[in-house]
């Protein structure tokens, strides 16, 4: 699904912030940031596959490629750590 110009890409990426030993808060570990498909598209080519009208309304975009499903990565993490 996530493939453009032959390479695939991920809609979500992570990084590890530095956690000092004097940091009073519990280390958050991994932080996440969203990288939606349009970043990898460049100028939109004509004739991209489209959602049907009703579904496009629910998904927030007419073009399947640009649909960016967001799931809170911290939610699943919170359930496991606490």
């Amino acid at each position, binding site marked *: 699904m996530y493939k453009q110009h032959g390479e695939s890409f991920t809609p979500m990426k992570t990084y590890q912030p530095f956690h000092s030993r004097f940091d009073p808060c519990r280390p958050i570990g991994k932080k996440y940031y969203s990288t939606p498909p349009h970043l990898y598209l460049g*100028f*939109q080519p*004509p*004739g991209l596959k489209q959602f049907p*009208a*009703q579904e*496009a*309304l629910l998904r927030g*975009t*007419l*073009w399947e490629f640009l649909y960016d499903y967001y799931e809170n990565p911290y939610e699943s993490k919170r359930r496991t750590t606490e």
Partner: protein
Amino acid sequence: MKQLPDDYYQCLSNIQAADFVLVELTLYLDTHQDDIQAMEQFNQYAQYSKQLKQEFEAKYGPLLQYGNSYTDANWSWAKSPWPWQV
């Protein structure tokens, strides 16, 4: 309290979907003025949206005011439900 028929919501939802497609196509065509296929789709949906609105207004009264919609026989635009109450 008289409730609205399901068809009322179904028609509104269809209108909303058609208008969303028109918004998306408008934004797309702003930067792709040579995409004939998209322009054809735009005109199809523009016509489809007009038709949906006519059907809705025939059954449930005007959607817009100040001449943007025809009035019904009892000038009922000011009667509830208002859009935010629907």
